[in-house]
């Protein structure tokens, strides 16, 4: 009987410990866009000297995500409130608009960490002052961003 109680207490402790969880991310599902260029050697990474980026947010003022930064890739938060996200990319006084059409679903990371958006990229539209082309590399975007993960390529 004593052993039974001890086993019960041990199990209770294990269960109590198992419920402790630490949430490392901020539940933001972000797209990684890598900059590419077509050269004699084929498609290669490229870095732009001074890039500014902001999103077109209906009903909200413009807010910069990047300001004149040298970038070879950018991390963009997608809009969980709708099925598309629009960004304006400016380089050296020229600007292009990139519209990302996505399916937006939601999933539970865990009971402690809560819900996040799960985006599935469908199509990319853009103006062509600087941007030559775009390509979807990995369509699914969740809140757990892995190192070296990339979702789209933007060709300049």
């Amino acid at each position, binding site marked *: 009987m004593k052993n039974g109680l001890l086993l019960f207490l041990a199990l209770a402790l294990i269960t109590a410990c198992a419920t402790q969880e630490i949430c490392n991310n901020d539940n933001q599902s972000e797209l990684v866009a890598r900059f590419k260029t077509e050269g004699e050697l084929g498609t290669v990474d490229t870095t732009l000297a001074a890039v500014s980026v902001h999103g077109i947010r209906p009903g909200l003022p413009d807010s910069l995500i990047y300001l004149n930064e040298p970038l070879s890739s950018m991390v963009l938060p997608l809009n*969980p409130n709708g099925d598309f996200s629009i960004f304006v990319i400016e380089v050296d006084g020229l600007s292009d608009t990139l519209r990302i059409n996505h399916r937006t679903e939601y999933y539970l990371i865990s009971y402690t960490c809560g819900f996040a958006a799960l985006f599935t990229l469908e199509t990319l539209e853009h103006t062509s002052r600087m941007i030559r082309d775009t390509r979807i590399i990995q369509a699914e975007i969740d809140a757990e961003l892995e190192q070296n993960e990339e979702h789209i390529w933007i060709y300049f």
Partner: protein
Amino acid sequence: MQNWNRMKNISGYIFSVVLLVLLPVMAAGQDTLRSIGPRIGLDLSRFAYLFFDPAERGAELSLDMEIVRSLYPVVEVGFSSLRETEDQFDYAMSGAYGRVGADYNILQHADRTVYHTVTVGGRYGVARFQHRAENVTIPSGYWGDYLLESHEYSLTGHWLELVGAVKAEIFTNFFMGWSLRYRILLNPDMDPLFAPLIVPGYGRGAQNRAIGFTYSVYYKIPLYKK
């Protein structure tokens, strides 16, 4: 008269011999009669769940009976509910469950009036319950948080379990005992959006395998002896 007395003596002798032969048999029959009847159990460990995080309210009763020597068909029923308020959503679950199966006693006693058991057995479990997530916020510092519509689902969970148990008769017809259970969830994808926090009677819905434990008191209703 002498003959009559002689006959009385002979008949008395025969009766005594018959009694002498029968008595041990009758006495042995009385000693080895085994008390049979339904045994009702209450799982006390369920009350410890009130102190877990989140607190789970519920109760579980069991009913078993030794229908043939060492074999105990079992029915277990219970209910469970919990509420949890997280940073990004509120969650509630409530429902009932049942398990059916059998235990086999591997502890064989020479004395048929000893009822302590060490059993191995199996169960099939089913839970009918509802769970609901409300005030779900999908955070977005840049675009503005998105408030998801309340998500409510009626669910049915199925599982199988292996059970090892010990029961000791502490007073006549009163038992205490514990069981350890290994559970296999048969339909982990019961909700397409998210796994239930707890499947009543099973354990954490996000886990396809679970360990269970009961610590119970029992009373056996002594219906008959055989």
